[in-house]
């Protein structure tokens, strides 16, 4: 399983960009508007690594949200 935004998902073999686009698509947010962290390493705005995701990878897809 791959951890995507805190949830275990069967995403082994998918690319990071596929996963990010799926997460963004569900919410209607442009992939250009997010930052992505893979195993504590930050990847910015579309320049995500091409390697396929593997079991135990942890992916965070974040965006600017409302806050004080």
């Amino acid at each position, binding site marked *: 399983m791959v951890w995507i935004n805190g949830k275990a998902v069967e995403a082994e073999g998918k690319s990071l960009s596929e996963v990010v686009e799926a997460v963004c698509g569900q*919410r209607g947010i442009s992939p250009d*508007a997010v*930052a992505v*962290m893979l195993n504590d390493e930050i990847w910015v705005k579309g320049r995500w690594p091409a390697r396929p995701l593997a079991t135990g990878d942890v992916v965070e*897809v*974040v965006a600017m949200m409302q806050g*004080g």
Partner: protein
Amino acid sequence: MSELVIAGRRLNSRLFVGTGKYRDFALMREALEASGAEVVTVSVRRVEVGAAGHQGLLEALDWQRYRVLPNTAGARTAVEALRLARLGRALTGSDWVKLEVIPDPTYLLPDPLETYRAAEALVQEGFAVLPYIAPDPVLAHKLACLGCATVMPLAAPIGSGQGLKNRAMLEIFARQRAVLPPVVVDAGLRWPSEAAGAMELGADAVLVNTAIAEAQDPVAMAAAFGQAVRAGRMAYEAGPMPERASASPSSPTQGVPLPQPEMPL
């Protein structure tokens, strides 16, 4: 009115505003515009379906008009704050970070030790650090020595609307302005008069979110806060009259046209 400069950037407004708790983006946009604020805080959150407040903000605001200030809200430790700060920088392209390290969910009081540790690391990583702190002038001075861009003492607990509860401590901040970076009073205000009061004490700026977003008319309240902050700063720079223990008549005491006892009438 004198200019406010933070981390080398000249700011047009001494009112900072948050983007949280608005009913919708249209209302938020209108309120932000009415406030006249330039610095606007945002949070960093997972892109999730069905989570409240999780609409993306990138397209909701004209970021040419505002200076984005990502916060580390949600961090309970220095390590967590570093993670959120780095994500915030990646998202916004801004080196500015409102550092919040808050382990206490009831009063949302910041952890001074973890805040200090996180500030030390973030300054070394090139961030302009704006730390949210309890109104502790000693901690503020230590954060200043680290190279923090501001200090942000709380007036009252976040979102409480209790007003300038920490007035006495904020007066000490004002007296120590010479050894502190800009002081931004943050959190807990309810009325514009409280923001004006903080500015009259000598605060360099005020950050407001809930008092605007939860007002019955957020747009009018935003404008009121904007005017209050300007008025408070102008009054501070104008300098108040001396305080006296007894009254001092404003009208001349001589020449009052009333009968004297020795007069025939």
